[in-house]
């Protein structure tokens, strides 16, 4: 009996325990949906949090015993553990930010929680994938759940538009990815990342042009998921149309996972070709920063502005990818963590503020928030300052590490242009500060009730995360430096 069909050992099951737990909880919620009365459905939130919490612990414990699983299909190393913990953490904050919103929209269905959990399972598979087919499977699990989430409020026209756009463009991009995977299999004879690397570094690859084209197609697939220019056009429409907590989730969870898998595939499998793909990513990084920042300046809808801002931030992470060094990898990891907390927090405040039917989502609606709800305004200020990259916030150290990595890799022009971009970005974030603090409250403040408990947890947890990463960045960075792919 060949090795390849050996039964997995218990240690291997142990390594994927987080995925197993999340799948079980999600499936349990789907079953409960058929049994429970409306009043009892309140437990979904608690159940999801507990499930995610246990999965988080399992992911941390799994990190103590790193290694491969299921015949080299999956790899659990520091890098994977970092991102697994991150996406599960994102899930927890998202659930906290969602419960009040769902109750207010009278849409507290089990499928919402189940889809979030399934999406996280897909992201966990992505970040642990050690071969291209697993990458694809993880990406599809995550994406299909996200498509449905984007259109969750099915009576809402914007939700439908958002979901349809996301689905059509997403499928198109995934097709590119799959096509690239097929070519890679054709040229190198493998879909395993380490084997592809061996083949490419031995110089036995039949055609550099074919392999390079395949790598480019795979990059297109990932580029879509991380909303890198020129594959970013879906992001503003989707983030604007989707329910706010879902936008929060989409802008950080799938993005972090897609970056993780992009870094793993390009650093591991295509590492030997780094000098060839780095210029492509260079151009893409610059274009993404510029498109994101300059388009964000023009927006009047805060969700749309945050969408463009999230495009710009993808550009900064691509700068780190361009550096293709272990410092760059660690910088990207840190940045994605800092960005996750910051953006979740910002979207959570938007969720709170927009109220039923998302009535108040223009920037001008925020006028005078500082006078009516000073705590929430202060929190949003913190998140915006972190997005600008002001010191003592996580966003600052994220940018700092990324540009340090870029300068280390002699990417002087990219670093300078990126730094100037971050100064441009200050302009549109400041606009929100201006209306919150320097304008008098208008009609949008009349029926603003204090935030609910769960939402407050989401906002304050994000704020603590942002500040901790900004004042004691060493804790996360030490781990990221050790875990970064060489």
């Amino acid at each position, binding site marked *: 009996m060949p090795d390849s069909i050996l039964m997995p050992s218990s240690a291997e099951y142990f390594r994927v325990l987080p995925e197993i737990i999340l799948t079980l909880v999600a499936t349990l919620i789907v079953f409960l949906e058929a049994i429970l009365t409306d009043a009892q459905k309140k437990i979904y939130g608690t159940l999801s949090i507990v499930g995610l919490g246990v999965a988080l612990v399992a992911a941390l414990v799994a990190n103590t015993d790193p290694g491969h699983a299921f015949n080299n299909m999956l790899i659990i190393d520091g890098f994977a553990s970092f991102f697994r913990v991150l996406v599960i953490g994102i899930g927890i904050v998202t659930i906290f930010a969602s419960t009040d919103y769902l109750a207010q929209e009278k849409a507290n269905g089990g499928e919402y929680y189940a889809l979030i959990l399934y999406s996280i399972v897909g992201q966990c598979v992505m970040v642990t994938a050690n071969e291209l087919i697993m990458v694809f499977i993880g990406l599809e699990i995550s994406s299909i759940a996200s498509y449905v989430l984007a259109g969750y409020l099915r009576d809402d026209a914007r939700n439908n538009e958002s979901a349809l756009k996301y689905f059509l463009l997403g499928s198109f991009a995934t097709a590119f990815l799959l096509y690239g995977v097929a070519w890679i299999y054709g040229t190198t004879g493998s879909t395993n990342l380490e084997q592809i690397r061996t083949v490419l570094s031995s110089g036995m690859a039949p055609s550099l042009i074919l392999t390079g084209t395949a790598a480019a197609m795979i990059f297109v697939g990932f580029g879509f998921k991380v909303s890198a220019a020129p594959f970013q056009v879906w992001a503003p429409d989707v983030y604007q149309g989707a329910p706010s907590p879902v936008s929060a989730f989409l802008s950080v969870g799938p993005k972090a996972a897609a970056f993780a898998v992009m870094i793993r595939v390009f650093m591991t499998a295509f590492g030997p070709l780094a000098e060839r793909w780095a210029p492509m990513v260079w151009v893409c990084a610059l274009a993404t920063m510029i498109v994101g920042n300059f388009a964000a300046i023009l927006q009047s809808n805060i969700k749309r502005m945050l969408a463009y801002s999230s495009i710009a931030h993808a550009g900064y992470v691509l700068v780190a990818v361009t550096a293709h060094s272990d410092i760059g990898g660690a910088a990207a990891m840190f940045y994605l963590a800092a960005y996750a907390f910051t953006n979740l927090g910002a979207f959570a405040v938007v969720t709170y503020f927009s109220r039923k039917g998302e009535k108040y989502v223009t920037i001008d609606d925020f006028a005078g928030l*500082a*006078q009516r709800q000073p705590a929430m305004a202060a929190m949003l200020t913190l998140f915006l*300052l972190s997005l*600008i990259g*002001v*010191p*003592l916030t996580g966003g*600052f150290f994220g940018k*700092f590490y990324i*540009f*340090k990595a870029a*300068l*280390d890799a002699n990417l002087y022009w990219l*670093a*300078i242009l990126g*730094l*100037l971009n*971050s*100064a441009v970005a*200050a*302009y549109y974030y*400041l*606009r929100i*500060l*201006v209306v919150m*603090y*320097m304008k008098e409250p208008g009609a949008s403040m009349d029926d603003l009730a204090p935030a609910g408990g769960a939402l407050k947890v989401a906002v304050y947890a994000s704020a603590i995360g942002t500040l901790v990463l900004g004042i*004691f*960045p*060493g804790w996360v*960075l*030490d781990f990221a*430096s050790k875990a970064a792919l060489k």
Partner: protein
Amino acid sequence: MSLLDVVLFLPLIGFFALLLVPKDNPDVIRKASLGISLLVFVASLGLIAPYWFSTPAGYTFTTDHSWISYPPIHYHVGLDGLSLWLVLLSTLLTPIAVLISWKSIDHRVKEFFAFLILLEFGLIGVFVSVDLFLFYVFWEVTLVPMYFLIGIWGHDRRIYAAVKFFLYTMAGSVLMLGAIIYLYNKSGSFDYLVILSQLQSGKLSLGSSVEQWLFLAFFLSFAVKVPLFPLHTWLPDAHVEAPTAGSVMLASVMLKMGTYGLLRFCLTLFPEAARNASPWVATLAIIGIVYGALVALVQPNMKKLVAYSSVSHLGFVVLGIFSFTQQGLDGAVYQMLNHGVSTGALFMLVGYLYERRHSLEISAYGGVATPAPNLAIVALITTLASIGLPMLNNFVGEYLVLQGASQTNFTWVVFAALGVILSACYMLWLYQRTFYGRASESLTHHMYDLTLREWAAILPLLVLMFWMGIFSQSFMPSISAQNASILRQTTKVMAQRQPSIPGAAMPSSPPTVAAAAVEVSNAR
């Protein structure tokens, strides 16, 4: 933990304490912030102790803790003859800013005073950071409170001014961040002293062109802050729109962040590039001096007039720094302090007038001296100080700058001296139009003389104007010693680079210069 840590962190603690005070009790907030800022000031007086009778070399009150293990960022702070006086300037002006905002700030009182105290924390931090990274952090930290001070409590175009202020500074400072990271990548440290010693020992050698780029990155970020012509356009907007306390803090302390950075970092870290750039920088500084003065001459708005006079005065400081002479540097540092005192006082006086008449237009005034004689006397002293009358503070600084610059290039002095003459024109004309003449009915109706609180706020500055003008010796030795060491470091790095010109342009020894300063200030 040294006294310096206490002085640095007291405002931060005070800031959080203020946040805890309920906001419906503005008087408690005012008194609390006055108490905090006075406490900080008293504590900061203790910092003078080592400098009063001697001039200790290097940093005193140092604390060096690891903040972030990798990259190695340290909480490394220290005080020397240069930063000492700037810290004192910050701690002195904060309680004054609290006092002058007592009545004029009547809405969102808690936030205002909290931001003011937070600003003090950032300012002190900028002047005492030895770690470059820490310096950058504080540099940015000052930005946020000032942005809110202008944007919330300013005048009509406050939002435009606040955003412009933020963006200008931000655009400059990101380039500095890039340069700091580059220096770290080459040297493996963020510590200014470590980088400096590596440069001097030749362990770290930047090529000429790299040095030029790094110099440019630092220089741009500081030049925006100074502000140097032609990067000055944010300043009139910010000053005119800011509330009085904001203008005072901005002019008196925040602009000094730029000149402090030039002196501390640009000169010593990139000496060759700095020397090569000096004709260009000096030219810009002189353009700033003359241009600022000419624009001030035609301003109908008195706050704008004072703002442009700042552009002119700061030009002197930059000229002094880039003369690369002992006298030039001494004059520049002294002028930084003088400008803080006299322009701070000018902005306060403009604020006093505004509180009475609610107009910044010069044409709305005239004859103020009749209903408010004390106010007129105080304003006269301040005006004369600002012009640079002997026995008053600005004279000492301006003289030293001009003397230092004349050693480097006499043509500079010819043009720069124009600024001195013009400053007499615009300031005296302003004084004449505001305080002399017949007081109109409506003016007399609104005008009242200085109140006790207003006296309390401006008196320390008046005392300093005389003190610094007559007994410059109280301040000069520590400043001179520090400047001599900066010049020594400059030549050391240069000597390392080009052994052919060892000790090039070594200045005259500090004691003679200090003596010259006394002579100058006591002359006439």
